[in-house]
Structure formats: structure tokens, C-alpha cells
């Protein structure tokens, strides 16, 4: 999965000998990098164990603090000695956080645009290149990148694990949001490689939870309390940055992911909505980052965050804060107002759950358990919304909302490392599905999906295309991933040209495009002229995706402008999949 030179081949892998129980240093650790908090867990030989930092935290704030010559991440607590000061330091402009929202995104992305109200610098040109981000050090903006920040954080996390385990660690299973594109996944892998970690798997968060659920169901069966028949779980996960849903069918320790869906809606959006609600001139007041404004905004952010947390258990909450410069906020917030302000977010949640059910071809009555995880799953409206859509009174009880994803990742780490457990608690398997459509651009700006979303992995599909002009000798294969009907609404993963197409009337040549996702989740695209055949036809082209490194928004537009018409393709409506 990661670049070749980071792969560590143990001698048993190269000789093809059956491997006996791997020694514990070879067991991959599980990491949940959250937008707000991170956690790490390991299989300790008997069970999954979450590790704590020196301040006794299992969930460590995700940030990196930039000081004169030192960098420190939230694992050890950065510069702050006391927890109470930590939040204020994070919001001082000197720390970069929300890396997970920013990584692998272009400056035209709405998530990046929304990040401009964070205390550190997020500068955009709006042309589809990576945003410029910087932390405040000695009253100067010092530039960095989300990958770099994440790598620094992971390095500190790795050191923490090695201190606990007293041996070096190299393999890891990380959880990622369902909405992460393959390009974003490569950014995560890059950050891991920079931190000296080899990514064994990137698991969509709800599928990690599904694995934990499968283990518990298996355990119940062993204890003769479960029936052993198939159980269907809907897993809903909402953290600070993302919201995901999955439907998993579990039997005998095997969890088949029937459907996945996700979007970028989370606690950060709720927080920003409430801040704008209690301070209507928020945007004009905080336009342009000065030290004063950053300080004032951090006060508002802390107070609002606090209020949202309190509102989980209270009917109403009061926000009273002096923002300096004569600006004061004094406001009482109740649930109905809170729900009104965040209606768009709840609508998004509803949409992904409904989509998940439709894609899984299930009705609410088919669902046995509703598993609610992630920090935002504590919000009453989220709970009632998810349970309501699934027609359930209560959610599944035995899973900790904040520890589920990392525990699942650590389980997967142990399984993928080949650990056997005599008690059978690792006798598990998750069969993954693709979270998004994969396809190419055709008919100008349309998107032709070749591997539809929720296809079981490993997968291979192909589709036939044809030329759109007479005597067209070249065609552009632009590979996209996403849910949009227009190619431009999706993530561009890469592109290449098929050349030497024999001159023929339009619509007569068969161009075959095959997509293959192997067991390691690597995507390859094969394309070439399928008909006519013969020695005069150029060889097929195989490309491992994504090939793009950066600035892909820019790139997609340039491609469309330069070649959109001349090198276009049309779908050949023949031999559809049964």
C-alpha cells in the first residue's frame, strides 16, 4: 500500500514459509486520527488495549504546536502543562489542528474555505491548488502542510507506543472517513511514511466499528447467548470533521460491508454554525487575522464549544462572554434553536443513512442493531434522528462511542499481522466494499462509473467505450472517483492517453477500460483498443491510480479545456453487466 521502500519484508514473507505466530513487534498497531482527537490501540496478546499518554488521556487532542525551534504535538500535550490551558494554546494561532479536514484538499474545496475561520492561517487562491497554511511563530506566519503536521503528530504517537511496548513499531492500521478520496488516502500514507510507519490498511471508520461488533457477536455465540444467525447492523459515526454510515451483515465472525456512505459534516460545522448564530457579524468582525482578533475568536470558540457540550445534558445553556473591544455575547440557547441552526447538517446525516439503506437494499425493519459512535453521537438530535430513521427505540449498548474505531483498527492490525488467538477472539474477517463510484470522463463532462460504489473488494469491472469523432486516433482516459454525475464534481485521480487508435468512423472502434481493485485496495486501470485487434494495434496501458500529486483541480479544468472535445469518449451501450 505504501511506497515500496518503506515495506519491511520479514524473511518468512520472502521465502514463502508458513509463518508461525508473529512476535509482538510485528503486530500492527491501530490508530484513529480524529479531526479533534486521536487514539492508539494495540493487541496485547489477549485483547485490545488503548494506550494513554503521560497525562493519562486515551483521546489526545490532534494538533501540532509551533514554537521558536520546537514542535510539539498533542500526544504529549504540546506546550501546555495543564489541560485547562491546552485549548487556549491550541487556539492561539501557533498550533495547526483539523489536519484531517485539510489534508489532500484543494483550495476550491468548501471544507478548506470553511477552515479560513480557524485561528491559524489558511490562504486560498481558489484555482484548485493546495491551500497555503501557516502557524504563528513570534508574530510571523510560518508555512507548513497538513501532511507535515500529521507526520509530526504521528511521530510523537509512535514514540508513545514504543515507550509503552518497549520495542520499535513499524506497521499500522489507520481509520479514515468514508468520504476520503483515494488521493487523500495517499496523503495519509505519505504522512505515515514520513513518520516511519508502514500503512498495512486504511479502514473506513464504520467498518472498523463493524469488526468490533462482529467480534462481540461471535463472543455472544460462544457463550451460547447469541443465536449465530446473521445480524444486520447500521453503524453511524460522527466526529468533529466527518460523518459516516455503514450497513454490515455479520455472521460467524465475518462482517460483510453491504453499503457505505459518508460526507464532510461534523462537530466543527456545528460549532461554526453556533458561533455565527450567537455573533451575527462573526465574518466581518474576524476578517483578516490580527493577534487581537485571533484571541477574541478563541474566546468565542471555547465558550461555544463548552455550551454545545453542556446542551447534551441540559435543556438550555447560557453563553456569556466578553470578546474584547466592546464586543459581548450574551445568549441563551435551547435545543430547538440549536436544531434550527444546524438543520442543514442533520439533513446531510439523514441523507447518508437513507442512501446507505437503499444501497444495501434494506428497510429499517431489517436492521437488528443501530451502533452510534463518534463524539457527535452524544447529541440528542443526532441520536433521535438515526434511531428514528432505523425505527428503533434504543441503540446498541456494548460499544464505547469514542473507543470503537481505534479498537477495531487494532483488531484488524492483529488479524492482518497473522496473529492467532486460541480463544478464537481474532477469528474474524471484514469484507470491504468500495465507498465511491470509480469511473472515467465521457460525453464531454459526464462521468461513466465503471466500478459502482458498494462493490465488494477485490473487484474488477470493465466497460466498453467508443470514439466520438470520425478518424479519432487518440482518446483521453481521465479517471475520477465520487458520487457526482458530472466528472468535475468528482475527484480526479489521474489521466493518460490512448494513442494509435486505427482511423475509423466514429462509434465503430471498441475502447476497453478495465478497473481492478486488488486485495490490498490498490486501484489499477487498464485501457486500450479492444476492437479491431491485430498487430497494428498499440499495446494496452496499465496505470496504477492515483497518479496525481497535486493541483488536481487546476489540472482537471486544463484537461477539459485542452482535450475535452477532441479526445472525448462515449459509452458503447453493449454487453451491460447482468
Amino acid at each position, binding site marked *: 500500500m505504501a511506497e515500496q521502500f518503506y515495506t519491511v519484508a520479514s524473511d518468512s514473507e520472502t521465502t*514463502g*514459509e508458513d509463518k508461525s505466530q508473529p512476535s509482538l513487534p510485528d503486530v500492527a498497531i491501530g490508530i484513529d486520527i480524529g479531526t479533534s482527537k486521536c487514539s492508539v490501540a494495540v493487541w496485547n496478546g489477549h485483547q485490545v488495549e488503548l494506550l494513554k499518554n503521560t497525562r493519562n488521556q486515551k483521546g489526545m487532542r490532534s494538533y501540532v504546536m509551533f514554537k521558536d525551534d520546537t514542535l510539539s504535538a498533542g500526544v504529549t500535550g504540546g506546550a501546555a502543562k495543564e489541560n485547562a490551558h491546552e485549548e487556549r494554546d491550541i487556539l492561539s494561532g501557533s498550533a495547526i489542528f483539523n489536519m484531517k479536514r485539510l489534508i489532500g484538499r484543494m483550495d476550491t474545496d468548501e471544507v478548506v474555505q470553511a477552515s479560513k475561520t480557524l485561528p491559524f492561517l489558511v490562504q486560498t487562491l481558489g484555482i484548485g491548488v493546495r491551500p497555503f497554511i501557516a502557524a504563528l511563530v513570534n508574530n510571523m506566519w510560518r508555512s507548513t502542510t497538513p501532511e507535515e503536521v500529521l507526520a509530526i503528530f504521528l511521530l510523537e504517537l509512535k514514540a508513545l507506543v514504543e515507550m509503552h511496548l518497549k520495542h520499535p513499531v513499524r506497521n499500522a492500521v489507520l481509520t479514515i472517513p468514508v468520504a476520503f478520496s483515494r488521493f487523500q488516502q495517499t496523503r495519509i500514507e505519505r504522512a505515515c511514511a514520513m513518520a516511519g510507519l508502514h500503512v498495512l490498511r486504511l479502514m473506513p471508520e464504520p467498518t472498523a466499528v463493524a469488526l468490533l461488533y462482529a467480534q462481540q457477536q461471535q463472543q455472544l455465540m460462544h457463550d451460547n447467548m447469541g443465536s449465530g444467525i446473521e445480524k444486520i447492523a447500521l453503524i453511524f459515526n460522527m466526529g468533529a470533521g466527518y460523518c459516516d454510515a455503514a450497513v454490515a451483515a455479520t455472521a460467524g465472525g465475518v462482517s460483510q460491508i453491504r453499503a457505505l456512505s459518508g460526507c464532510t459534516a461534523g462537530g466543527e460545522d456545528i460549532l461554526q454554525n453556533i458561533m455565527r448564530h450567537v455573533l451575527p457579524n462573526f465574518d466581518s468582525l474576524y476578517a483578516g487575522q490580527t493577534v487581537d482578533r485571533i484571541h477574541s475568536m478563541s474566546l468565542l470558540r471555547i465558550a461555544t464549544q463548552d455550551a454545545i457540550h453542556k446542551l447534551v445534558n441540559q435543556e438550555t445553556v447560557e453563553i456569556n462572554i466578553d470578546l474584547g473591544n466592546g464586543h459581548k455575547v450574551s445568549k441563551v440557547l435551547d435545543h430547538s434553536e440549536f436544531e434550527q441552526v444546524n438543520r442543514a447538517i442533520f439533513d446531510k446525516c439523514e441523507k447518508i443513512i437513507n442512501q446507505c439503506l437503499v444501497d444495501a437494499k434494506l428497510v429499517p425493519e431489517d436492521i437488528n442493531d443501530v451502533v452510534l459512535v463518534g463524539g457527535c453521537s452524544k447529541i440528542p438530535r443526532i441520536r433521535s434522528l438515526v434511531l428514528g430513521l432505523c425505527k428503533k427505540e434504543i441503540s446498541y449498548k456494548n460499544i464505547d462511542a469514542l473507543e470503537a474505531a481505534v479498537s477495531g483498527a487494532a483488531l484488524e492490525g492483529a488479524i492482518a499481522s497473522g496473529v492467532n488467538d486460541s480463544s478464537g477472539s481474532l477469528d474474524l474477517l471484514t469484507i470491504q466494499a468500495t465507498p465511491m463510484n470509480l469511473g472515467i470522463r465521457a460525453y464531454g463532462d459526464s462521468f461513466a462509473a465503471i466500478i459502482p460504489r458498494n462493490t465488494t473488494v477485490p473487484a474488477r469491472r470493465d466497460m466498453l467505450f467508443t470514439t466520438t469523432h470520425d478518424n479519432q486516433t487518440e482518446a483521453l482516459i481521465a479517471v475520477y472517483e465520487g458520487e457526482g454525475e458530472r466528472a468535475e464534481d468528482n475527484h480526479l485521480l489521474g489521466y493518460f492517453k490512448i494513442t494509435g487508435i486505427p482511423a475509423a468512423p466514429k462509434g465503430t472502434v471498441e475502447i476497453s477500460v478495465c478497473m481492478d481493485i486488488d*486485495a490490498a485496495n490498490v486501484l489499477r486501470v487498464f485501457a486500450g483498443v479492444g476492437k479491431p485487434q491485430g498487430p497494428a494495434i498499440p499495446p494496452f496501458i496499465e496505470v496504477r491510480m492515483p497518479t496525481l500529486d497535486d493541483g488536481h483541480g487546476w489540472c482537471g479544468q486544463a484537461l477539459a479545456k485542452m482535450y475535452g472535445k477532441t479526445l472525448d469518449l462515449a459509452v458503447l451501450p453493449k454487453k451491460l453487466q*447482468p
Partner: protein
Amino acid sequence: MWRRAGAGPLRHHLAAAAAAGCRVNRRPLPPMPPASSSPASCSPLSQHNLGILWGSASVGAPFRSLSNQSGGGGACWSCGATGAFLSCGSCRSVQPVDPAVDYFQIFGLKREYNIKDNNLEGKYKDWQKKLHPDLVHSKSEKERGYAAEQSALVIDAYRTLSKPLSRALYLLKLEGIHVDEDKTINDPELLTEMMEIREAVSNASDSQTLEKIQSQIKEKLETWSDSFQKAFDKKDFDRAVEATQRMRYYERAVEETVKKL
């Protein structure tokens, strides 16, 4: 961890001498060329591979030759035990794909249309637990390659057999009959009916009406499914092909109602 300490050949020797049990009974194998874990990663330049590519591609279910109806399983490449089918019963090694095995054999079913839901998903999961590439991560490159292929085959088999239409088409294919799915409708009656359904779906304003339309289409789907079975049993393949085409139209119509619901 003495096994890990030795150099390659010594380890083979030690392992072979060490114990009974199939794991160590393995004959030393000649070094394999670096086979890729994915069947697709072979160079598409080779004609042979292209053949496979097309086969699995255009129809979703690779055509498998039926000349050798063994199905009982052969000798395990790893421990030599007989009766190894997909995975070895005694040493659990994943076996290479046998092109003579058809999807029905994988699920232990007779080759017939009406499979009466024999807990297909359960059997599918049982196989995946033995074959899935995630579970042979620490095995040899060669065996991981087998696992990737076998697992993909079982996924295809499950996908194909679990849905009536794809199961019907697969049965026809096993009989050597190719269904031209692109054939245009020339039955004016069907054409009118499809247009009427489409109109009714687009005019339906509430979910109740849509559900009613949907159940009507599903009934027709059921009828044609039955007539496929009868025709297929009588080896009246022309009628069987016609039935699959009808089934396809009604399935598309159901999809349209689902989209609107």
C-alpha cells in the same frame, strides 16, 4: 523463535525435519517467479491474459470450460492431501483456481435455477473465512495470489447466483448460450407496456402509488422467472432467453421505482 533465526535453506530443512502435520510435509518448491497478488496485474500485453480480461469483463461471470467436471477437488499443492477444493481441508492452504469448477459447485448446489435460498450468504462467508486475502497476509506470495483469485471468484459466484437474472444468464452460459443483451425490443406489446410503466412511474406523486406499481412489476418479474425455469428445464433455450430479456426489462423498471421512492 528458532525458526526465524536460521537462514533460508536451513530453515526449510529444519522445518521439514521438525514435525509431522501438513505444514512441514510440504515438498520444497522451486522458486516462483514473482507472481502478483492480483490477476489483473499481469501484463495485458499477453494474449492469454487479454482473453481472461475480456472473459470476466464483458459478462461479469467468467466463462469456464466444462470439459472436466471434476469438482471433487484435487491434491493439495502444499501438503498433498486429496480432496482439496478451493482450500485444503487438512492444511488449510488456499488452492489455485481450477477453471473447471463452476459457481454452483462452489456453493454445493445442483446446477439448477431454483436454488431455494440455501443460505447462500452463510456459505459465501464460510468460504471467505478460508480464502480471503486479508487472512493469509503472512503466507507466501504464491498463496496470497491464490487467495486473491479464489476470493474474487467466490465473490463473483455469490453475486451471480444470489440474483435471479444473473443466475439465469449464468445457467445459459454454462449451456454455451450467449444472450445478446443489446437486442432491441421488437415486440410492440412489450414496448407499449414499458412505456406505460415508465409513464406511470413518472406520474406517480406519492409513495403509495409507487409501491403499488412496484409490486405489480415484481409480480410480472416473478411470472417470467417461473417461465424461465420451465423453459430451461425443458431445454427450450429460445424461450429461456426471451424470459431473461423480459426479466431484465422488469428489473430495470423496479430500479426506476426504487430511485423515485
